[in-house]
């Protein structure tokens, strides 16, 4: 099972703050994200390391996708 977590407005776009996806084989991250998901100004962390939409996601991975923001 892959754990996907979405933060900020990206959760609205994904339709959920967290989702689990079952994978038989590794796939690129973009393949398990909704169509038209933003490609710029986002932070992708795969198991706490910086990743991107082309990162290969395997069963058991934890993925967090966050907006780039400023915090006040």
């Amino acid at each position: 099972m892959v754990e996907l977590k979405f933060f900020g407005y990206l959760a609205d776009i994904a339709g959920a703050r967290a989702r689990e996806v079952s994978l038989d084989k590794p796939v690129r991250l973009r393949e398990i994200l909704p169509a038209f998901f933003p490609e710029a100004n986002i932070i992708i962390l795969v198991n706490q390391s910086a990743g991107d939409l082309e990162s290969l996601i395997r069963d058991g991975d934890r993925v967090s996708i966050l907006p780039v923001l400023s915090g006040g």
Partner: protein
Amino acid sequence: MKGYAGKLLRVNLSNRKISKEEISDSVKRDFLGGRGLAVKLLWDEVRQADPLSEKNKLILATGPLTGQPIPNSGKMVIAAKSPLTGGYGDGNIGTMAAVHLKRAGYDAVVVEGKSASPCYLLIEDEKVAVVEAPDLWGKNTFEAHDLLEAKHGKNSGILLAGPAGENLVRISTVMSQKGRAGGRPGMGAVMGSKKLKAVVVKGSGKVQNFDDARVQELGKKGYAEIKAKESYDFWMKQGTMQAFDWANENACLPTFNYREGVFEFSKDMDGYVLEKLHVGRKGCPLCNMQCGHIVKDSSGADAELDYENVAMLGPNIGLGSLPQVAFLNRMADEWGLDTISLGSCIGFLMEASEKGLITDRVKWGDFEAAQRLVLEIGKGEGRGKLFSHGVKSASEAIGKGSKKWAMQVKGMEISAYNCHACPGMSLAFGTSPIGAHHKEAWIIAWEIANDRFSYDKAKVEKLIEFQRIRGGFFESATVCRFPWVEVNFGLDRYPEFLEAITGEKRSWEDLYRIGDRIYNLIRAFWVREVPSFGRPWDYPPDRWFEESQSTGKMKGVRVEREKYEQMLSWYYELRGWDQKGIPRKKTLEDSGLKDVARELQDTLG
């Protein structure tokens, strides 16, 4: 030059002399306005002054973009030699006073001297007066605002010092519109020291722009562009509070005086909880993405919240109730206390209590005790006396190794990002020119997106790029950075705004040069005014080097001191400063600061 109001207003409170001066085009070209103008004035006019004496000057400064019909331009800079740090101090504030000041015909106000009795400054276009204000002295910022608004009308811009500023508490800010704050490095105390309770501005004129029709067109397009951004709707729901679970997820939420980076009650007080409690919105003039969310505090009163004050008065003191945090926040706003520094002081005191370094027993998350502390700090009495000068001074008084976890740089408390596992952001706090503040270079998102554990030169280059844009351009232009940083409004719009407003074409390269000039001059000011100033002033507290978080994803990670040293050395090299952090003569001369280079050489001998 077009786009500026045209005049500098100078008011001496000692002899009540009021004068108006031209600001030269070369100063406008070289320093833009806002922070740039403020540091130029302070460099030229404030030498070796006690920050709370009549020799210090309070600068209110706008920029060419201030008050224009373009996105988020209702901002001004408040600056002085800081009583908190001893060096250059400033802050920006969103306020109707900024818009009115330019309409009244002034780009900046310089307040000098010291009044013998409480007063306020009333600016109504050409008419300027110092008004006696015995009835306002001692009033909190909400009460004083209401009194002044009743007297001068709702269509007034009002800046206020709270009772904390009157009591010369060094962590006091300037307040406006019952909740807007600015001037973290003790600008409220500078007003208090001058017995200046308030500045009221009413302007009815109009600034002449180079191409007014183009400004209108660009502004209209800009507002529409912001509204169409895909993150806009979410921003309107949570504002800066979206950073709360962002910071918790990334283990950088300041928790228990920055000992930890995740908080067990975070889900009880994050942006989604704010959405449920939201009863209204507040913000700055000329803004269509207002960031202030009003909730009912634990007493049922309205209180305005944003990320920084929730993080610092919540997790950082172990308090997990948003209405209770809102109550403390409202108290701070009424007293004119900086919520970041206040949260840091209370967190520090709670840790000192836990460690048995002080006789008081104040437990983490003790809401009643926190209320009492806010009052004592605001009054500068009792335990508040120890903390009214900030955590650096408190740790020096307490001793026993507490300096290691007094969370400050250059004497100013760190804003709400815990950086055990963010070396780039540690350096951003370390090199922030007013003391630790996030407004200068919020590199944390960039570094987490790329490689949060790296210490490479590219990270330092990026940090300087952010300083040029944020601390250089936005603070001097003077407009809010949120459209760019929060909803990705294009940076390329700003040179277009500047050209339509001033008639002068400037590229981002040109604006970077202005930013560098401003950073060099601020640095020179520190060197001249603080005899011991230099490299040791550019380090975050030992907590980030020597300790690590005990729980969460970044457990065990800390900033590596030797690698931080390397990054700091690169920072100096890239800035053209020597390894003691002193701007080189050539760097100052190349920045157009020949006279500054000469005076600095004389200072250093």
